[in-house]
């Protein structure tokens, strides 16, 4: 898929996310919007995962550690053919639905349950060690949030990944600078997060615009070439990306748009898709 098509797809899927959240009467809309470009590049360019290959030996692995952005993952997995788009839009968060507010592996396309933050990286480390033991060329990807960096278990996983020289592991940090209580630097300062990861023995790739598909493609490509250490992409993204109504607003971490907001957001997203 071309870079332009990936971009258009991201805006199309953003509309699905908004519709899902409207139908389900709530969701983590801000982080969905910041991370969805990375998910689209992962699933439609970088990883070899398809419904036909999912669960087969040697496949690539994906862990959504910032599990609250599940709406973005659902939109991507539906587009990828793991389950019906209509079904997830209609059933998200409804009584008895399999489409709950965090990833669960009873659904096709999802390997690990998440929701409690700080779990994804250690799990991904285990997958990467295991695939090395299995002698496969599989790569493991894990997406974390920036507020999540305050969890101690993230750094336990970071130490282990470097200790075991896991060059088959690629972490992605959605650095949108906002968490539910406000700016990350005011809640629990990350300071120079790149240096922290470097000092833990990781190859750090700073992606100036983490919502730019071209930059994402080349960053994932660079990570593939790194030998002897794990890589992390620090994506400088915009929380609520796609509409001025919600961009860079911490209050949109979890928010149900009003009818007026909904209309404005959908107009902005359609416009952005056309202009892509």
């Amino acid at each position, binding site marked *: 898929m071309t870079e332009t098509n990936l971009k258009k797809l991201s805006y199309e899927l953003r509309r699905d996310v908004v519709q899902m959240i409207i139908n389900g009467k709530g969701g983590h809309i801000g982080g969905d919007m910041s991370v969805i470009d990375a998910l689209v590049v992962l699933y439609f360019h970088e990883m070899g995962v398809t419904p036909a290959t999912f669960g087969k030996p040697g496949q690539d692995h994906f862990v959504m550690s910032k599990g609250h952005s599940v709406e973005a993952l659902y939109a991507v997995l539906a587009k990828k053919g793991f389950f019906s788009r209509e079904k997830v839009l209609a059933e998200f968060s409804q009584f008895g639905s399999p489409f709950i507010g965090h990833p669960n*592996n009873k659904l096709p396309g999802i390997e*690990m349950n998440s929701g409690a933050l700080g*779990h994804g990286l*250690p799990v991904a480390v*285990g997958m990467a060690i295991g695939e090395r033991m*299995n002698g496969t060329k599989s790569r493991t990807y894990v997406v974390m949030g920036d507020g999540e960096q305050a969890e101690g*278990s993230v750094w*336990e996983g970071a130490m282990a990944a470097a*200790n075991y020289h896991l060059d088959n592991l690629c972490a992605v940090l959605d650095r949108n600078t906002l968490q539910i209580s406000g700016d990350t630097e005011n809640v629990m300062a990350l300071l120079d997060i790149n240096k922290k990861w470097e000092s833990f023995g990781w190859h750090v790739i700073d992606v100036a615009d983490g919502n730019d598909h071209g930059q994402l493609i080349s960053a994932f490509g660079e990570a593939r070439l790194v030998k002897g250490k794990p890589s992390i992409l620090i994506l400088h993204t915009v929380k609520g990306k796609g509409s001025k109504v919600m961009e860079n607003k911490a209050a949109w971490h979890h928010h149900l748009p009003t009818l007026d907001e909904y209309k404005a957001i959908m107009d902005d997203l359609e416009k952005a898709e056309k202009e892509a």
Partner: protein
Amino acid sequence: MGKNVANKVMINTVLMEAAKNDRDVVVLCSDSRGSASATPFAEAFPGQFVEVGIAEQDLVGIAAGLARVGKKAFPMSPACFLTTRSYEQCKVDVAYSHTNVKLIGISGGVSYGALGMSHHSAQDIAAMSAIPGMRVYLPSDCHQTRCLMEALLRDQEPAYVRVGRNAVDPVYTEEDCPFEMDRATVICEGTDVCLVACGEMVLYAKGAAEILKGKGVSASVIDMYCVKPFDEETVAALAAKARVVISVEEHSPYGGLGSRVAQVVGERCPRPVITMALPDAPVVTGTSKEVFAHYGLTAEGIAERALKALA
């Protein structure tokens, strides 16, 4: 093999036997290979051993990831840390994600003696049993531990196994160790008192039954190594024959074996249930045996309690 083999040693013996023919058997430690008696495994199978350092959350998360890619993961760490520091990983990454991880809690209960409450695991049965999908096992001796580990190697489900630090006198023999997975082992049947025990307390319950027999009191002894899934049928059947039921465990009185026994007896054949357990307090300083003796968790203590209850 000598008669007094620590359960943790047996766990590693069984895993080493399995690892010879199964490259998917993986042991993980958190700077705990020595205390887990896993050093021989680590040396014999370096490609199937993962050291994570002193990081128990990482230990369980990595084990879950390994399991997801087809490994049979056996993280081994002191029960106190494995079940409380890593509790959320046990809940989410193992049980909820349904990964083939067998959590091995070593030096459980008050095994660490004088090291204090930070190193005691007197709430692990309660904590782990409350997680949906998590099975909880406390084998009573090395022979039963072998049977249990061989069964666990054959299934794909999450489980927690708690064993003590020390080699203890066996309850069974190599030749005579009746074992059915997830069914309690009935050591003897009686009509006055029904003793239900798990882990190291089984030996004392068996000893109590012998003392009681000498005094003309007939006792059942149930080895409830499978605390979850709990063998309700066996407890209900033998409790119904007795006047009094006594549970014995190396655990807090809250949410352990005694709670489950009381629930089942209360529902199915109501009669007095006495819970013998550690106190709801930091335990007295001492070795395991000294601590047990202090709280009456001995053959004599159990027999005495039974006689008092029957009087």
